[in-house]
């Protein structure tokens, strides 16, 4: 082989290596472009809008770097903001209480019904979020079976109702986000080696101790993922409060919607959106740090 040939060979190899180095970027490119167009640009606009003030005429705003917008937004809507977190917290708690036994049963006790049950968990997604919430309005409504039964049983008085109550809003939130809790829980429970439970029983732990000391800790990553996937969208939701609530159950999502679409107060809506995002981010970071999931398998 001549030196010239060798030379070409090494050049080709260099070209090949640089091609290989570029490959990850090419693979990432569509995602990055997507994020720039649909996340970074809107976020920039949101931040920029949040400090604007009204110009000439309704719906026209100019940048004046008015940071007091945030203070105005908080003072006028802190009730709804806290209510959002309260409802989201309640919905997350109820979803966890309902989902854990469900996910446990699907993972360990369902046998040949496992796939059927999983399909049933996901089945609500075949119908739109809005429609399902409207359906809940019907179920809990004045003509529904639930309210009639409760009235017959005198659990609720003749004047009592279920719709347009905080209960209905939290129930709707719980229902709508249940699959987001169940699926990660199922995934983490299903991964647990059955021999861990056997070893626990072998080491003098009864069923309760085995659950507390082995199963529950090993499923914590699923609990954290499920609670985040439920809490975050629930805190920003406005459909459930809109359809199942009353003026006293308005959540922050409803306020933002009203400011944007009805009052046409873009800076106020943007400021509230940012406040919501940042507070969720802080809560989530504190939660993840506290639950210490990074140490789990």
């Amino acid at each position, binding site marked *: 082989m001549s030196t010239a040939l060798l030379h070409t060979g090494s050049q080709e190899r260099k070209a090949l290596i640089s091609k290989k180095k570029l490959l990850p970027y090419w693979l990432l490119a569509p995602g990055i472009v997507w994020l720039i167009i649909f996340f970074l640009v809107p976020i920039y606009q949101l931040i920029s809008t949040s400090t604007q003030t009204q110009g000439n005429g309704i719906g026209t705003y100019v940048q004046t770097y008015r940071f007091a917008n945030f203070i105005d937004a908080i003072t006028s809507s802190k009730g709804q903001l806290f209510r959002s977190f309260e409802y989201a917290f309640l919905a997350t708690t109820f979803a966890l209480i309902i989902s854990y036994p469900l996910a446990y049963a699907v993972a360990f006790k369902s046998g040949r019904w496992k796939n059927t049950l999983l399909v049933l968990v996901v089945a609500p997604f075949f119908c739109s979020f809005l429609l399902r919430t409207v359906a809940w309005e019907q179920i809990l409504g004045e003509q529904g079976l639930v309210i009639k039964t409760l009235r017959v049983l005198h659990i609720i008085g003749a004047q009592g109702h279920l719709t347009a109550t905080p209960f209905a809003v939290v129930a709707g939130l719980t229902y709508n986000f249940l699959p987001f809790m169940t699926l990660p829980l199922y995934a983490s429970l299903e991964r647990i080696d059955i*021999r861990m439970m056997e070893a626990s029983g*072998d*080491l003098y732990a009864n069923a309760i101790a085995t659950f507390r*000391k082995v199963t529950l800790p090993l499923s*914590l990553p699923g609990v954290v993922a499920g609670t985040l996937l439920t809490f975050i969208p629930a805190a920003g939701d406005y459909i459930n409060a809109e359809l199942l609530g009353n003026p006293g159950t308005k959540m922050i999502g409803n306020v933002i919607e009203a400011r944007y679409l009805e009052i046409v107060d873009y800076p106020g809506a943007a400021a509230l959106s940012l406040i919501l995002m940042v507070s969720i981010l802080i809560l989530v970071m504190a939660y993840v740090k506290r639950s210490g999931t990074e140490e789990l398998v």
Partner: protein
Amino acid sequence: MVGASFSVHGDLTLTNLTKNFGEFVAVNDLNLVIPEGSFFALLGPSGCGKTTTLRMVAGLEESSSGSIAIGTADITYEKPYRRPVNTVFQNYALFPHLSIYENVAFGLRRRGVKDVDAQVQKALELVELTHLAARKPNQLSGGQQQRIALARAIVNRPALLLLDEPLGALDLKLRRAMQIELKWIQTEVGITFVHVTHDQEEAMTMADTIAVMNEGEIEQMGSPADLYDNPRTSFVANFLGQSNLIMGSIIGGSGREKVVDIFGSKIALPVSRNHAHDSSVLLGIRPEKIRIAAAGSSMYGNILQGGVVSDASYIGVSTQYQVEMPWGQELMVFEQNDDGTPPLAKGDPVVISWEPIFTFGLPGDQDAGAGSEANPDSE
């Protein structure tokens, strides 16, 4: 280690123990007494029912019928967490979310034992891993995890320690070292060890008594030397080491020795090693017991003439020969390379002989190949 021991102790007795999985009989009417303080091995190929037996003793599997007792206490229907039994699981099953210390302390804490700290320290000292107490299981090597699994079980001072293929996941060198260590620990703590394995070498190295299991039943039970030198079935003869099994018929003999005719040669068989029911016998001899020499050499003991070397492999410490006999059968002969004579070559006519005492006789109706394909160590 002091304290934390159980009031229940004694021999492990399995009576008519049976386990069916639907139509399949995994364990068939097993009767077994494992003496307190012994190192007992259940040896057999995969699917022979040894692990099922172990899981029934641990309480992880319910028996279909029969009973399990430790000393005088019947534990057949006892919940696993109430049995004075601990298990070293096949892949250790250490709790990944707990530190090594908490893994070892797990059983003590569940039972509300006092001075957990001192006992965990002692257990970790026993396996020489005190310095790893704060680590998580996935930060340990396979051999270290194995020792922790052992410490986690032993710390409870159970009446019975069950080991399910405990060394199966380790490489050969580590496995050898752990065999010696396990045996030493067993002697040290004095707990009854019941060890399940498919590795005959592992069973022979460690156990006082071995029960060879096949198809849900015990083929033979005894000390390693007893099983090796005096097997009762062709399965045992082939599963533990290698055997030459030759068809023959008993044609006479005295009270101490039978005379067996194999294709015209007269072979002496000690009566104590004859397990044939009638005159039809499978005559057995271990390959390393056979002497081999060029045809025409003078030989003594049991002698077979007319062989031809069909294959010779020199493997350092010994030479392994395949000798084709006049009746077409190939016999294995392992000859130590210790007498300075050059090894025989392929095609050489030879004569072979052995001490009559090493001969054993199996029932002639048994399959001469049984157990040989099940043994991973044999070719």
